């Protein structure tokens, strides 16, 4: 009688197999195998092959309470120009993080002036198109400035708008083809 549980298992498996056609069973197994192998490949190799990934975000150690981040500022048009941080609704379809991340490789390209000019011209023209479509209520721009901000973190984040140091990396003037590059 000891063989009965084993036999029962085998019969259950046979019933399961009969409930699906052979080609469907094969397809489902192939899909499951592909998902497992694709995911494990990126986990083991520590790589990204969207939609597979190693999901490494937030996995690095943070040892010092400091932060460096890129910031895009608009400069208002008019007799007394004023700088203001570009809000996400003025950058659509980008969000702040995606746009500044997209600028990083351009900053390190040998044609960086040309590429950044094209990129910020595009940003400025979309800003204006969104403004005219009343998708945001920010003022017209005469320039866009790209900064790198450095902070010593404040425990209450009171210095968000007042970094310890800011470095102007690039400026694009909307009303003329001129641009100013800063090292």
């Amino acid at each position, binding site marked *: 009688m000891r063989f009965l549980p084993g036999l029962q*298992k*085998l019969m*259950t*498996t046979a*019933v*399961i*197999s009969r*409930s*699906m056609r052979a080609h*469907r*069973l094969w397809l*489902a197994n192939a*899909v*499951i195998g592909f*998902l*497992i192998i694709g*995911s*494990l490949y*990126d*986990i083991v190799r*520590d790589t*990204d092959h*969207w*939609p*597979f*990934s*190693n*999901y*490494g*975000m937030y*996995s*690095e*150690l*943070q*040892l010092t*309470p400091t*932060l460096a*981040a890129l910031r895009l500022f608009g400069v208002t048009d008019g007799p007394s120009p004023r700088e203001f941080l570009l809000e996400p609704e003025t950058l*659509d*379809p*980008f*969000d*702040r*993080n*995606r746009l500044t*991340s*997209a*600028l*990083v*490789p351009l900053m390190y390209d040998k044609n960086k002036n040309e590429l950044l000019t*094209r*990129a910020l*011209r*595009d940003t400025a023209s*979309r800003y204006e198109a969104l403004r005219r479509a009343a998708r945001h209520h920010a003022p017209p721009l005469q320039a866009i400035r790209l900064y790198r901000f450095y*902070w010593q973190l*404040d*425990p209450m*984040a009171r210095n*968000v708008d007042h970094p310890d140091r800011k470095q102007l990396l690039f400026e694009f003037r909307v009303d003329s083809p001129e641009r100013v590059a800063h090292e």
Partner: protein
Amino acid sequence: MSDRWTRFWFAPASPSNLGLCRMLFFGGMLLFYLPTDFSAWGDVSPVFWQPIWLFARFHLPMLPKGALTVMQMAWHVALAFSCIGLFTRTMTAVSFALGIYILGLPNNFGTEYHYDTLVVMAFAIMAISRSGDAWSLDRLRLRRAEREQPTETAASGEYTWPIRAIQLVMALIFFAAGTAKIRHSGLAWVVSNTMSIMLVQQQYHIANADPLTTVGLTLALHPWLCSLLAAGSMTLETIYPLALFNARARAVIVPSVFLMQVGIRVLMGPTFNQYLICNLFWVPWDRVALAIRHRLTFSRPVTIEAVPQ
């Protein structure tokens, strides 16, 4: 081994749970993505184009705004049809084919986000599944056609593996996130000030969305609490695959990780709404529907008609 594999993935089940999951998943995705205009990416300058692996490998181009608008409309229709279960096989396939392009497109500009990866894989699985065999207009049409001899759909492994496969993808994703922390930082990720520093950094507008509250700053003042949060997150993520095999582990891990993702949104900013919706694949909806039906049946007032003498 082969027996265990077959019984795990293909144990016969009724089509109800998969059908309800399909309805809720595609309905949820339609409502979630409806306000997002992906066609705006067609207007972005090619200078920003930095193709991800999928687009580079298969030479997928950046389509113009007009084409994206049409594609997006077709995608919304496919999601709606998949939700109600009309032409389900075709519509779920269309949802996947258009969805992988539409959801992948923004990742070619600047940085890869991982908010939609689970959704894309769930679309792929649903496209191959037989999810329209219950809770669908297709089923109603079939019943109407068979009016004389209505047949019940037999239990089958066809209705088990798609749900299990989506649960597997979730498990692999969280396992990857947990192991990445162990690999890149080890135990120091828990015992150092990393969590406390990250909670403060997130208030400096660095994520795709800002945190909903500033409670993270208060938590960051208590290093032991931050270490506890870090230990909890790393452990839950790494052991998430246990939820696939053990009911008790599932009852703890799945709701805890759900709450963890809500916590991330509240304290740090990143938006994992799609993941939150995909948790519906852990719920045995057929049993929930049965329980609701039972409750409604028993709570209905009994009327006794007076019989005239």
